[in-house]
């Protein structure tokens, strides 16, 4: 079944004029994001990743090309890596309400939405807690709750786990999975290949151009896996599966997530 397209980029180029020298941050990008799809965006520093996310959110002007979006996809919240650079409120409730105020949500609905959003990130009852009393991981969960409460069809995440410890990181990944099950459309930028397996599609950005678009399975496996061809650091677990397959074991499965790899190896070592 073909899913409707939430947002489509056609031949998008973004360039800046730096005193006579033109710098192309994004070059001729074509990308369609279907409703309910989770897309992982991989790309190093200076790959144009953040600009791409801002184009998707409608915050950057284009030098060329066009962006088509469903009518409902007019506001796209972005969750960034540094919570301190995105929290506006003094308390958890105030921060969640900031986005709702901008969307002109009726005040009597705000409490309900805040309660639901906080429950979905595991921070029920934190409404009146001042932001300064939260840990870094909790602050990031508040940022995610603030985005969820806006109930927009598309949410963008810009390396949301980069500054978190492993516990908070796995908590954020759980929320990603939950959003996916709920049919939320998600664009997820990351540096960590461990997180790619949670997505339906992987997009690799290099020097402002798309150098790979495909499924996580095709990204990690095949005669010449793109993850190796493109020079990424491959997660230990995937690398082990590669080695085992080279030795004739586990040749009929292609696990893309760490927990799937662990499960496969556990079967080998009873």
């Amino acid at each position, binding site marked *: 079944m073909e899913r409707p397209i939430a947002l489509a980029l056609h031949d998008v180029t973004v360039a800046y004029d730096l005193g006579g020298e033109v710098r192309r941050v994004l070059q001729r990008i074509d990308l369609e994001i279907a409703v309910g799809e989770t897309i992982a965006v991989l*790309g190093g520093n200076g790959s144009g990743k953040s600009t791409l996310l801002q184009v998707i959110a409608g*915050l950057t002007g284009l030098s060329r090309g066009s962006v088509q979006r469903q009518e409902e996809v007019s506001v*796209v*919240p972005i969750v960034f*890596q*540094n919570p*301190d*650079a*995105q929290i*506006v409120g*003094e308390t958890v409730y*105030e921060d969640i309400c*900031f986005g709702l*105020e901008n969307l*002109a*949500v*009726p*005040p009597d609905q705000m409490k309900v939405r805040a309660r639901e959003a906080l429950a979905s990130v*595991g*921070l029920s009852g*934190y409404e*009146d807690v001042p932001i300064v*009393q939260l*840990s*870094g*991981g*909790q602050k990031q969960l508040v940022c995610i709750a603030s*985005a969820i409460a*806006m109930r927009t069809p598309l949410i963008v995440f810009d390396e949301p786990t*980069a500054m978190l*410890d*492993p*516990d908070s990181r796995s908590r954020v990944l*759980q929320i990603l*999975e939950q959003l996916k*099950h709920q049919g939320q459309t998600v664009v997820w930028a990351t*540096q960590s290949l*461990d997180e790619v397996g949670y997505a339906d599609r992987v997009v690799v950005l290099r020097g402002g151009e798309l150098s790979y678009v495909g499924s996580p*399975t095709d990204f990690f496996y095949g005669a010449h896996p793109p993850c190796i061809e493109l020079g990424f*650091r491959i*997660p*230990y677990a995937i690398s*082990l599966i*590669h*080695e*085992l397959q080279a*030795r004739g*074991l586990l040749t*009929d*499965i292609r*696990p893309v997530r*760490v927990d*799937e790899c*662990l*499960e496969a*190896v556990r*079967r*080998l*070592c*009873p």
Partner: protein
Amino acid sequence: MSLILRDVAVADRQGRLILQDVHATIPDASVTLIIGRNGAGKSTLLDAMSGLVPLCRGAIHYDDLSLWQEDRLNKDVIRSIGNVFQHPEQQLFAATVEREVAYSLRYLGLPKDEVERRTVTSLERMRLPERLRQETPHLLSGGQKRRVALASTIAIQPGWLLLDEPTAGLDADGIAALLEFIELARSLGGSIVIATHDLETLLPHADHIVVLHAGRVAAQIRRDEMPHLADILEQAGLAVPASLKLTDMVRRSGVRLDSSCPSPRELADAIVRAYDMNTRRDPTPVFRSRQTSSSEALARPGPEWPSKAFQPDRVTGEASPMPSFLVRLDPRAKWLFYMLLSVGILIQKHGAGLAAGLMVAGMLVWYARVPWRPMVKLSIPLLVLLVASVLVSAFFGSGSGFRWQLSSSWRTVFELLKIWVVSLLGLTLAMTTSQLMMKQAIERSLGFLQRLRLPVGAIALGASLVLRFIPVLAQEYRRFSKIVKARSKDRLHREGIGLKQLPPMLIPLILSLFQLASDLTIAMQARGLRSFRAARTSCYQLRMTSADWTVVVLGLLLFALFLWADVVLF
């Protein structure tokens, strides 16, 4: 020869212990990882090793030399320490790459040609081309900037290299460069200590691990004890990286592993041996058929959510110590009350009136439970001013020589006391009113100005954001002053920085604040803030209730009382 910590304890500025009973021996010419949850004290431990924070107990020895001699730092010891902080690329400030490296070398007092030689070698070692030497660091790419910062650290040829979360936020190229840097430092005979969450990346390079838990050392692990690492991490409630889980799984199935941290290739070989052993023991290879049937389930994992009930960390501190009655009052009512009471106090001309004002204000501050720390901070400058002006007016008040002018100094004290009382009341107003509530009150009260095309909404939001960012500003200030102290080896354990250290501190601080402001603007736009003219709602419904009007009337009564007292009574 090693770094020895004995019974080390460190407290934060509020006097709470962040580290205690820390006993550890860190071998030299090796790589040691310090691991633990957020808030376990990893960064503080590195700061303590660098002399950036004073110890409240215990001792730290580098080889035979103590880091501290009485309450002074041992210069010979701290000279041999090189720090790499999180996001080192943000610490650059100099006009050229060359001068950036030279700044780190300055405290060594080396002759010019030696500085030159070390600059060239360290840039070479970090694979930065010669032509970049005269370039402005801020024009380089992110990766090059980081290499410049690392080069300035290896240029001092530190015997001990302390790194704080070096892989956070790095891309694949950045991580490759960092690992190269660590191996380079090791090959030069350096001892390396790394505080990190990223075991997956750094474990293969580690010789020794210190596990911190709630400010204490939970375990110390040598390389030959690494096989037990997975158990220890689990016991300490820490996430076990996939590589360790896999290795552990294979080891438990009875396969002997030669290496404690095997590469994927070595582990795969071991698994093949185990698998062959299994299939030989059991002639019917049930294994493969079982695997095929399970492969579908593997490719599409069922919904695992919620896999584990998540226990949010305990919130540090109490929710809100302020009485909720005051917090909930309409800011406009509070403000009117504050203005009326303040004017009432300010018009007092007699001691008795001032005493009454002091009493009323004192009761209010006590009722609002305003924390004493900000009160003291606010009071100190006023008290200094008070003493200074008393002295000045006492000696020069009349203009007729050095005669003690009691009445003139009393007048000064009197006026300053009134200002002090009014400031404390203002502080109480600020502490019991949330910024967004205040913002909305401003918007409502100044709404009529909008008709004159004044951007009231933008002004109100700007004002509330400035308040929100004060703690972030303070945090950034502390971060960059720590970096500058570590680089200049000046005033290490003391608060504040020297005048000479202002440019290397201020330039990165201002750049980082600009970045923060620009990030915040984008974040607010992404959350739907496009125009202040667009229709918006508000989470606080400001309505003057009977309680609010009562407060206003109370304010009017107090004002009338003070006026009457001043004019009629005294």
